[in-house]
């Protein structure tokens, strides 16, 4: 469903992504991990073209997101790829409910009443029906991130991308967000998650990709990757992670 073909990205001379060739199949859950600055955010942001690439292709459902396409076409593709940010990025001037309503209503031209009903159902799904009228500033980090997930789901995307969705959260709030992500995975959502939550990766991921210095150095099932990492960089990364 998501396919990287010979993707290269540079910031000036600095190579942020080097020759990425990987697939995420429909219904698959991929966890991307790696040290800070290894290019995980850059990689995931190329899928909906929040970052441009210098060469290669990123295909979503067979369509090259980075081709010369009309902006309307790119917007349509983006609306089919849910994206959850580390810093939530909820719209602070709108209530939780309106955050979820806005895009189906204004982008997909769903009637406001219908968008509202669906938004309430989604907020209920993430356990926040009772906070629908709260503004983002009145919600805890974990609650904001769950609203952000509901907001992305409101576009009914066939795939969801998560960029370190729990790393801005206080430890006691990590669980509630991971629980929502687990239930999405269980329902068969195609997911690509940048995360260092190894428990989540072990339980939910079909495959783990390990990145370093702009390259995917190793891929494997969680059992393979956590049990017997092949690459020395991956071994060091895992032992660093465990010693924390």
């Amino acid at each position, binding site marked *: 469903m998501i396919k990287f073909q010979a993707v290269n990205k540079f910031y000036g001379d600095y190579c942020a992504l080097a020759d990425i060739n990987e697939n995420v199949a429909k219904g698959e859950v991929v966890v991307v991990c790696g040290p800070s600055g290894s290019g995980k955010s850059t990689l995931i942001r190329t899928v909906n073209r*929040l970052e441009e690439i210098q060469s290669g292709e990123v295909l979503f459902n067979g369509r090259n997101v980075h081709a010369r396409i009309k902006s309307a076409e790119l917007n349509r593709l983006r*609306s089919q790829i849910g*994206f959850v940010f580390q810093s*939530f990025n*909820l*719209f602070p001037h709108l209530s939780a409910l309106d955050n979820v309503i806005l895009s189906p209503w204004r982008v997909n031209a769903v009637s406001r009443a219908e968008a509202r009903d669906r938004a309430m159902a989604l907020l209920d799904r993430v356990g926040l029906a009772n906070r629908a009228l709260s*503004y983002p*500033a009145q919600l805890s980090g974990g609650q904001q991130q769950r609203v952000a997930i509901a907001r992305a789901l409101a576009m009914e995307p066939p795939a969801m991308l998560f960029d370190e969705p729990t790393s801005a959260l206080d430890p006691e709030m990590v669980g509630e967000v991971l629980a929502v992500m687990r239930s999405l995975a269980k329902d068969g959502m195609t997911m690509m998650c940048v995360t260092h939550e190894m428990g989540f990766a072990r339980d939910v991921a079909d495959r783990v990709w390990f990145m370093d210095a702009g390259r995917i150095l190793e891929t494997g099932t969680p059992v393979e990757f956590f049990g017997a990492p092949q690459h020395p960089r991956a071994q060091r990364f895992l032992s660093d992670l465990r010693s924390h």
Partner: protein
Amino acid sequence: MLSNAIGIIQDNWLLLLIGQYPNGPLGGVAATLLLSVLAILLAFPFSVLVALARLSHLWALRIPATALVYGVRGIPLLMIIFWVYFMFPLLFGISVPGFATMLCTLVLYEGAFLSEVVRAGITALPAGQMDAARALGHSYGSAMRFVILPQALVNMLPSILSQFVSTIQDTTLGYVINVPELTFAANQINNRLLTKPFEVFLILALTYYAICFSLTQLASWLERSIATRRAGPAMPKLVLAQ
């Protein structure tokens, strides 16, 4: 002297308030406020367009808008008034009343300054807001309209109010092209009395001060209440840190 001033007010309050209206054109405080309010109401949408053009990726929009802003900011207001006043009839062959001339000038001038405020308000928002909107499939225009501008404009309200105060002060220059506003009315009175310029212009200064001071107070109150609202009752520290 105080009693002189009170006497002048008692004799001329209607002239100071509304000019010679309804027997002549509207003037005095009413004309000053009307001119300022119309100017800021028209300058505001103009300034949003100029700001968006300045932020545009299209050079055909960006360059003229930038030139306009730099041009207007580099020329004294009085020069622009003269240009509009003398050039408009020459170019279009119609003579324009002073009030309309002054209004056009103020829209251009205050709009150029306001556009910088609007631009700063837009660029001050975290980049994540635009990212989130684009990731949801909003077009650039839709993201601006529903996500960026509503936030930027609320944050800018105090600055817009300050610009309004400047506009009120700038209307005094309408005097040089005979716009019948407050300064014009005061000068009429002074010309009639001849011997009491100090009292007359004291009244004038106090009137401007009263209007502008209350608006400035309103602006700082707004600023404080927006800051409180933005912080929110339960804002987690982590979010503030970003």
